[in-house]
C-alpha cells in the first residue's frame, strides 16, 4: 500500500490556534453548534444552529448577529465581493430562505444589510432541504441543489429581488444533490452538478440549458469541489476508491486515493482531502475526557504528485482557508492551523532526500526564481556526479549554463577524465554562445582526444552554422592536433588567409594549393601574403609562384573573379588596375635566380617603365650567372642578354650601379658600353690602358677625341710611360696632339723624356715641325711689328708736321654741294671745305666737319664706351670666367686702358685743343668767318692729336675705324693715316671689316687647349684678377701687357697649330682689335731684340704716356721698349731660347696636367700673366 501512494512530505506545520500573544488555546467556538462556515475577505463566517451569523476576524474576535429565526444551513462567501449568501430557516418545515448580506453596508444596529430575501423555491411552500448552493462570481447566476435531486438556477442580478427572473429547474434527479460549482470560460458557463449517483455538466447557454451526464457515479456531500486554473478548473469528486476529475465534456484523470472522503477542499493548487479512516480505532485525545473519531487530513499537490501533508485531526467539521493558511475546524471545536512552509524550506527537505527532480518541479510550479533553480540544478548535478551518474550530472549542469561558472563543471569532469560528458557540456556552452576561447580549445581538444572526427566535422565543418566559438583558437587547436583539414576549412571560411596559408604551407605542405588560394585573394591580401610566404612558395613551386607574381605585378584580379567585372559591363567605372611593385618581391627569389630572371624579364617586357632596381637586379643576375657559367654557349647567351639589357634598357637602370656590377663580374663589354654611355671616355681609356691594348687606346682616342681631346694627352703620357716599344702609337698620338694643339711642345717633350724607349726619331718630326711653325710665326709677327712701327712713325711725323708746318687748303669744291668753292667758306683740316651756307645748313655743330662727323663720332663713342666699361670689374671677371681664352679677355681690357690712369681721353681732348689753338689760328685766318674757324681750329687742332692717341691707345679703333676717321680731321694727317690702314689692310685684309668691339672670336683655335685642361683656364682666369689689383705698378702692367699681347701668338701659336700660325694672329687681331693691334706694334717695337713682349703693351700705356704729354715727340724706342729691352730676361725669351729652364717646362714637369698652373707663385713677379 505504501508504495501505491505518492511520496509524502511534511510541508505544513500544524498548530492549534491560540489567542494572540498568549499560550491559551482559542476556545471561543467551544459552545457554538456550527452548522455552516465560509471564509474570505479577512474573516471567517460561521453559522450556527440558532440562526446566528458569526464573524471571526484575524485577532480571533468573534462578532455576530441573528440572521435567521431558526438556523443557518449554508453560507457562501463570494471571493470578489464582500457579499455573503446564506440559506437558513426562519420557520420550521418550510421553504428555506435565501438571504444576501452586503457586509460593507451596515444597518442601524451595525449589522450587515440584507439586500435580498428569497425563498429557495419561490411560489411554493413545499418543504425542501437545500443541500448545495453555488453562486457565480459575476453575481448573475445562482444554483441551489436540493435533497430531492433538483437543481434550480437563478439568473440575473442574484443579489436583489428585482431584476432576477424566477428560478429554473435545470436538473431533476432522484438522488440528493451533493455539490454544485460554476465554471466560467469565455465561451460557456458550465454548472457542474454532483449527486450521489451522478456527475452532470450543465452547459448554460443564453437561452437554453443543456445537461450532460459525465459519469454515473456520484459522491457524498462536501466531496465535490472545483479546482483552480492549475488543474484546468476541473470538477473534482471524491469517491471511496479515488478522486476523479471532470471536464465539461467528460471524465478526466483520476487519482487513486483510497478512503472514505468526507470533505474535499481546494487550496492554492493543493487538494485537501479529509478521509474517515475506517480502520483506525477511536483514539483518546490527551486532556479531554471524551473519545472522538479521528479523521485524516491529507494535502495533495496534484501538479507535482506528492502528498504535502497528512495528519490526523479529530472529527473535522470543516476546512477553512483564510489569512494565508489552511484552518481545520475540529470536532473538538479547536481551530487547527496548517501553515505552509516556505519554498526554501521545502526544497531543503527535498534535497535532504535527494529528490532533486521533485525539487525542480516544485520550484518551477512555485515560480521560484531562476537563480534558485540554477542552484537546484547545480546541487542535483553535484548529487548525480557524486553518485557516479556523470551523464545525468552533465545534463543538469547543462541547465546551469549561463549562471554557473563553467570552470566549476569543467574541472570536475576534467579531473574525472569524463571527456564524453565534458564534451557534451562544452558543446552546450558553445550552443549558447557563452564559450570563451579556452572552452573552444578544450572542446576541440576533447574531440581530438576522442578521435571523434565526426563530431569535429559537425562542430567545425557545418557550413551554415553560425560560429559560436573563437575561430582563431579553433584553428590553433586543430593545427596542434593535426586536424589540418579542419583548420583549413575554418581559415577559409572565416577569411583568415594568414592561417590558411600557414597551415597549408607549414603543416600540409601543399604549396600548390596555398598558391592557388592566394590567387583568389583580394589584391592587398594577396600581396601581403605572397610577401610573407613567397620564399617558401618559390622554393617549392617556383614556376607557379613566378607566374603568379607576374600577374600580381601587372594587372591583378582575384582568380575567382570573372574576367570582366559585371559592374563595368553595366557601365560602372572599371576598377583601377592593381599592381604590386616588382621590387618588393625580388627578395623572394633569393635562391632561385633562374625564376627571378624569368620574372624580371617578363616584367621588363611588360612594363618598360619599371624601376631601376629591376634592371639592376636583372643585370646582376645575368652577370652573376655569366660569371659562374662554364659552358661557353650559355655564357655567350647570357652575355648577349646582358648587353641587350644594357642597350635596350634605355636609362632605366642605374648606370653607376650597373657599372659596379659589370666591374664586379668583370664584364668588359658592359663596362665599356657603360663608360661610353656615361661619357666617361677617360675611364674607357684607362680601362684599355689597364689592359694594355694599345690599338684600343688609339681607337678610343680617335673615337672620343673629339669629345674629350684630353684623351690624346693621356694616351701620350701612357705610351710615354710604357717601356715597351710603342713608337707607332706615340707617333700617332703625337700627330693628333700636334694637329689639335693639345699640349705645348715642351710638355710633350718632357713627357716623352721619361720614356727610355722613345727615341728622338719619334718626335723629331714633331719638334721640327713645331719649331718651324714657331719660326714662321715669329717671322710673321716681326714683320707686322715692323710694319706697325713704320706706320707709327709716319703718324708721328704727320703730327709733327701738323704741329709745325702750315696746312694748305686747296680744295676747290664744296664737299656738300660739289660746286666750286666760293667765299665765304669753311675749311677743315681733314681736307673738307664747304660753302659757309652749305656748312651751316648741314653741320650739326660748328666745330665739326659734317662729312667726318659720323666717323669721328663712332670712334669717340667706342672709346667712351670702353672707358666706361673698363671699371666694371665684375663684368670683367665674369667675362674672364666665361671666356675660353682668358688671355684675350685680359688683353682686351688692357686695350681699353684698364690700367691707364683716370680718363686719358678727356685729358687728351682738352689739353691738345688748347695747345693746338695757336697753330690753328694761324690757319683759320683764311676762312672768311673768324669765329667758326676758331672753333674749327680748335677742332682741327684737337683732331690731330687724337689720331695718335686713338691709334696708339685704343688700338682697336685705329686699325679699323681710325683709318678713316683720323684723316677726317686733319687734311694733313689724312694722307698718312689713310695709307696706314691700307697697308694694314693688305697685311691683314680682314681686319677692317670686323668691328673692333668683338673680342671673343679669335679663340676659336685656342679653346681646345683651354678646354682640354680646365684647371689651367681657371688658373689663368684667376690670375689676372690678382695681378690686376696692382695697376699702379707701372712696371707690372707693362710687363703684363707684354705678356698679354704676346701670349696668344706666342704661347699658343707656336706650340699648338703650326699649320695655321698666321690665322690665329689675324683672327685675334680681328676679334680683339685691341690686343692684336698693339701686339703688332709691339712686335715691330721689339723687333730686333727678338723679344716681342713689351711693345704690345706699349700701345695702351704708351697712349697714356703720349696723351699725358702729347707734345713730346714720341721717342722711337718708347719707354716700354726700353723696359723690355732692359728686361731682356723676359720669360718668353727664355722660353724660346732655352727650353730647359722655361717655367713652362717646370710647370709641366711638376704638374703634368696643368702646364700653366703652378708656376704662378714662383713667377708671379716676373710674369704673372702667364699663369
Amino acid at each position, binding site marked *: 500500500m505504501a508504495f501505491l501512494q505518492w511520496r509524502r512530505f511534511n510541508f505544513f506545520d500544524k498548530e492549534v490556534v491560540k489567542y494572540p500573544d498568549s499560550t491559551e488555546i482559542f476556545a471561543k467556538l467551544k459552545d457554538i453548534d456550527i452548522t455552516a462556515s465560509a471564509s474570505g475577505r479577512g474573516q471567517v463566517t460561521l453559522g450556527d444552529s440558532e440562526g446566528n451569523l458569526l464573524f471571526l476576524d484575524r485577532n480571533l474576535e468573534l462578532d455576530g448577529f441573528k440572521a435567521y429565526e431558526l438556523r443557518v444551513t449554508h453560507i457562501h462567501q463570494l471571493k470578489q465581493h464582500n457579499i455573503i449568501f446564506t440559506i437558513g430557516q426562519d420557520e420550521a418545515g418550510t421553504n428555506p430562505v435565501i438571504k444576501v448580506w452586503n457586509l460593507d453596508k451596515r444597518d442601524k444596529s451595525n449589522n450587515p444589510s440584507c439586500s435580498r430575501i428569497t425563498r429557495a423555491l419561490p411560489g411554493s411552500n413545499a418543504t425542501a432541504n437545500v443541500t448545495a448552493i453555488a453562486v457565480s462570481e459575476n453575481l448573475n447566476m445562482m444554483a441551489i441543489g436540493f435533497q430531492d435531486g433538483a437543481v434550480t438556477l437563478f439568473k440575473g442580478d442574484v443579489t436583489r429581488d428585482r431584476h432576477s427572473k424566477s428560478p429554473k429547474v435545470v436538473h431533476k434527479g432522484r438522488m440528493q444533490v451533493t455539490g454544485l460549482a460554476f465554471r466560467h470560460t469565455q465561451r460557456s458557463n458550465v454548472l457542474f452538478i454532483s449527486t450521489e449517483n451522478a456527475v452532470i455538466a450543465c452547459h448554460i447557454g443564453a437561452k437554453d440549458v443543456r445537461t450532460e451526464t459525465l459519469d454515473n457515479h456520484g459522491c457524498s456531500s462536501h466531496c465535490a469541489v472545483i479546482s483552480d486554473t492549475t488543474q484546468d478548473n476541473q470538477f473534482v469528486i471524491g469517491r471511496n476508491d479515488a478522486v476523479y476529475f471532470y471536464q465539461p465534456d467528460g471524465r478526466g*484523470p483520476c*487519482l*487513486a486515493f483510497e478512503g472514505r472522503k468526507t470533505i474535499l477542499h481546494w487550496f492554492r493548487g493543493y487538494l485537501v482531502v479529509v478521509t474517515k479512516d475506517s480502520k483506525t480505532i477511536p483514539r483518546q485525545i490527551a486532556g479531554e475526557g471524551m473519545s472522538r473519531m479521528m479523521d485524516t487530513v491529507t494535502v495533495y499537490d496534484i501538479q507535482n504528485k506528492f502528498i504535502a501533508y497528512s495528519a490526523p485531526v479529530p472529527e473535522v467539521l470543516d476546512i477553512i482557508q483564510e489569512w494565508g493558511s489552511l484552518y481545520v475546524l475540529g470536532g473538538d471545536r479547536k481551530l487547527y492551523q496548517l501553515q505552509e512552509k516556505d519554498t526554501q524550506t521545502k526544497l531543503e527537505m527535498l534535497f535532504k532526500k535527494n529528490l532533486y527532480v521533485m525539487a525542480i518541479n516544485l520550484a518551477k510550479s512555485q515560480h521560484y526564481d531562476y537563480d534558485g533553480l540554477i542552484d537546484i540544478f547545480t546541487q542535483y548535478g553535484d548529487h548525480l556526479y557524486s553518485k557516479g551518474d556523470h551523464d545525468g550530472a552533465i545534463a543538469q549542469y547543462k541547465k546551469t549554463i549561463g549562471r554557473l561558472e563553467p570552470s566549476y563543471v569543467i574541472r570536475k569532469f576534467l579531473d574525472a577524465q569524463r571527456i564524453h560528458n565534458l564534451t557534451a557540456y562544452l558543446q552546450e556552452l558553445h550552443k549558447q554562445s557563452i564559450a570563451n576561447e579556452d572552452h573552444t580549445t578544450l572542446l576541440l581538444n576533447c574531440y581530438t582526444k576522442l578521435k571523434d572526427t565526426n563530431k569535429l566535422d559537425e562542430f567545425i565543418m557545418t557550413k551554415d552554422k553560425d560560429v559560436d566559438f573563437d575561430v582563431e583558437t579553433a584553428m590553433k587547436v586543430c593545427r596542434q592536433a593535426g586536424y589540418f583539414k579542419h583548420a583549413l576549412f575554418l581559415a577559409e571560411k572565416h577569411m583568415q588567409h594568414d592561417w590558411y596559408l600557414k597551415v597549408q604551407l607549414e603543416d600540409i605542405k601543399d604549396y600548390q594549393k596555398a598558391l592557388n588560394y592566394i590567387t583568389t585573394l583580394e589584391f592587398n591580401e594577396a600581396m601581403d601574403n605572397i610577401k610573407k610566404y613567397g620564399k617558401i612558395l618559390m622554393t617549392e613551386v617556383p614556376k607557379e609562384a613566378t607566374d603568379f607574381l607576374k600577374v600580381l605585378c601587372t594587372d591583378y584580379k582575384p582568380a575567382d573573379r570573372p574576367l570582366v567585372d559585371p559592374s563595368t559591363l553595366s557601365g560602372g567605372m572599371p576598377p583601377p588596375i592593381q599592381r604590386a611593385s616588382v621590387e618588393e618581391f625580388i627578395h623572394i627569389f633569393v635562391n632561385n635566380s633562374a625564376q627571378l630572371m624569368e620574372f624580371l624579364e617578363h616584367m621588363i617586357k611588360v612594363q618598360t617603365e619599371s624601376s631601376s632596381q629591376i634592371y639592376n637586379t636583372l643585370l646582376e643576375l645575368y652577370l652573376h650567372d655569366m660569371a659562374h657559367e662554364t659552358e661557353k654557349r650559355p655564357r655567350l647567351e647570357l652575355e648577349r642578354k646582358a648587353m641587350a639589357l644594357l642597350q635596350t634598357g634605355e636609362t632605366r637602370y642605374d648606370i653607376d650601379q650597373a657599372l659596379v656590377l659589370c666591374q664586379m663580374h668583370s664584364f668588359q663589354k658592359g663596362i665599356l658600353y657603360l663608360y661610353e654611355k656615361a661619357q666617361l671616355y677617360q675611364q674607357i681609356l684607362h680601362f684599355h690602358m689597364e689592359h694594355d691594348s694599345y690599338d684600343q687606346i688609339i681607337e678610343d682616342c680617335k673615337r672620343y677625341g673629339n669629345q674629350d681631346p684630353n684623351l690624346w694627352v693621356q694616351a701620350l703620357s701612357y705610351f710615354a710611360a710604357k717601356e715597351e716599344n710603342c713608337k707607332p702609337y706615340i707617333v700617332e698620338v703625337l700627330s693628333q696632339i700636334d694637329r689639335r694643339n693639345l699640349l705645348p711642345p715642351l710638355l710633350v717633350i718632357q713627357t716623352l723624356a721619361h720614356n727610355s724607349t722613345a727615341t728622338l726619331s719619334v718626335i723629331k718630326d714633331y719638334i721640327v715641325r713645331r719649331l718651324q711653325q714657331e719660326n714662321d710665326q715669329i717671322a710673321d709677327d716681326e714683320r707686322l711689328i715692323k710694319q706697325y712701327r713704320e706706320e707709327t712713325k709716319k703718324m708721328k711725323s704727320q703730327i709733327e708736321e701738323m704741329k709745325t708746318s702750315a696746312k694748305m687748303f686747296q680744295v676747290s669744291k664744296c664737299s656738300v654741294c660739289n660746286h666750286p668753292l666760293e667765299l665765304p667758306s669753311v675749311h677743315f683740316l681733314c681736307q673738307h671745305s664747304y660753302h659757309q651756307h652749305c656748312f651751316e645748313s648741314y653741320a650739326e655743330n660748328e666745330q665739326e666737319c659734317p662729312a667726318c662727323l659720323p666717323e669721328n663720332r663712332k670712334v669717340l663713342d667706342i672709346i667712351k664706351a670702353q672707358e666706361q666699361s673698363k671699371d666694371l670689374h665684375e663684368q670683367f671677371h665674369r667675362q674672364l670666367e666665361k671666356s675660353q681664352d682668358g688671355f684675350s679677355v685680359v688683353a682686351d681690357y688692357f686695350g681699353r686702358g684698364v690700367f691707364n690712369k683716370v680718363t686719358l681721353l678727356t685729358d687728351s681732348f682738352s689739353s691738345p685743343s688748347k695747345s693746338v689753338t695757336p697753330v690753328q689760328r694761324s690757319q683759320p685766318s683764311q676762312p672768311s668767318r673768324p669765329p667758326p674757324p676758331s672753333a674749327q681750329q680748335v677742332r682741327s687742332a684737337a683732331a690731330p692729336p687724337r689720331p695718335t692717341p686713338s691709334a696708339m691707345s685704343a688700338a682697336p679703333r685705329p686699325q679699323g675705324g681710325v683709318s678713316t676717321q683720323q684723316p677726317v680731321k686733319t687734311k694733313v694727317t689724312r694722307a698718312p693715316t689713310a695709307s696706314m690702314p691700307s697697308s694694314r689692310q693688305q697685311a691683314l685684309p680682314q681686319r677692317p671689316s670686323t668691328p673692333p668691339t668683338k673680342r671673343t672670336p679669335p679663340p676659336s683655335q685656342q679653346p681646345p687647349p683651354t678646354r682640354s685642361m680646365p684647371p689651367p683656364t681657371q688658373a689663368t682666369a684667376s690670375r689676372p684678377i690678382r695681378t690686376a689689383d696692382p695697376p699702379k705698378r707701372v712696371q707690372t702692367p707693362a710687363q703684363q701687357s707684354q705678356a698679354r699681347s704676346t701670349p696668344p701668338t706666342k704661347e699658343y701659336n707656336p706650340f699648338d697649330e703650326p699649320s695655321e700660325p698666321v690665322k690665329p694672329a689675324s683672327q685675334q687681331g680681328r676679334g680683339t682689335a685691341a690686343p692684336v693691334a698693339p701686339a703688332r706694334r709691339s712686335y715691330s717695337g721689339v723687333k730686333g731684340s727678338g723679344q716681342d713682349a713689351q711693345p704690345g703693351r706699349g700701345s695702351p700705356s704708351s697712349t697714356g704716356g703720349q696723351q699725358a704729354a702729347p707734345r713730346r715727340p714720341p721717342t722711337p724706342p718708347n719707354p716700354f721698349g726700353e723696359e723690355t729691352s732692359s728686361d731682356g730676361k723676359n720669360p718668353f725669351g727664355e722660353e724660346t731660347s732655352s727650353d730647359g729652364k722655361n717655367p713652362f717646362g717646370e710647370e709641366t714637369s711638376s704638374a703634368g696636367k696643368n702646364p700653366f698652373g703652378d708656376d704662378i707663385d714662383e713667377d708671379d713677379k716676373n710674369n704673372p700673366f702667364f699663369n
Partner: protein
Amino acid sequence: MSYAYLFKYIIIGDTGVGKSCLLLQFTDKRFQPVHDLTIGVEFGARMINIDGKQIKLQIWDTAGQESFRSITRSYYRGAAGALLVYDITRRDTFNHLTTWLEDARQHSSSNMVIMLIGNKSDLEARRDVKKEEGEAFAREHGLIFMETSAKTAANVEEAFINTAKEIYQKIQEGVFDINNEANGIKLGPQHNTVNPAQPSGDRGQQGGQGCC
C-alpha cells in the same frame, strides 16, 4: 486548436513497462528517468496530422498496478485505440499480455484498435523477449506490433500515429460510428454544425461524410 477528429487512446500494460514515459515522450518529447508511480489514470493530449486532417489524440495513461485495475477498467470504455505495452527486458510483462488483452477486449468496444508495443528497445543488452515473439503474438491476436524506446524516442511517434491511421482508416471504412462517443471518437467542433442535421439514429457509413 480546432480538430477534425478526437481519438481517445488508452495505454495499458504491467507496471513499470514505461507507459507514462511513452506518453511523456509523445506529448512533451522528453524522457524522465525518475518517474513516480502512476496513481490512477493520467492524461495527455497531442495534435497529429493524418492525410491533412488535424486529429487530436486524447491519451489515458493508466496505472499498471493490479490494485488500480478496477479504476482503470472504467477507462477502457470509450477508447478508440489502445497501446498494449510490455517491457522487452521483462518476460513476465509479456506473459501478462493475454490478461491485459482479455481485459481490454472485455471492457472496450470491439472495434478498438490495439497496438502491441515492446518498449525499452534501447536496452537491447537486457532483452528478454525477442522481437519475433512480439510479432508472433501480435499476429496471433490481430494486433499491430512495434518495438519502441521511450528513452530514445525510437518509434514512439510512429506507435501513436500508426494507431491513429488505423483508426482513421476504419472510420473511412465505416467501421466506427463517429457519432457514438462510446467508440472513443469525436468529431471536431467544425463538424458539429454538420452533424445535428444527421438523424441521430442513423448508424454506419457516416465516417465518409464526416471527412467531407
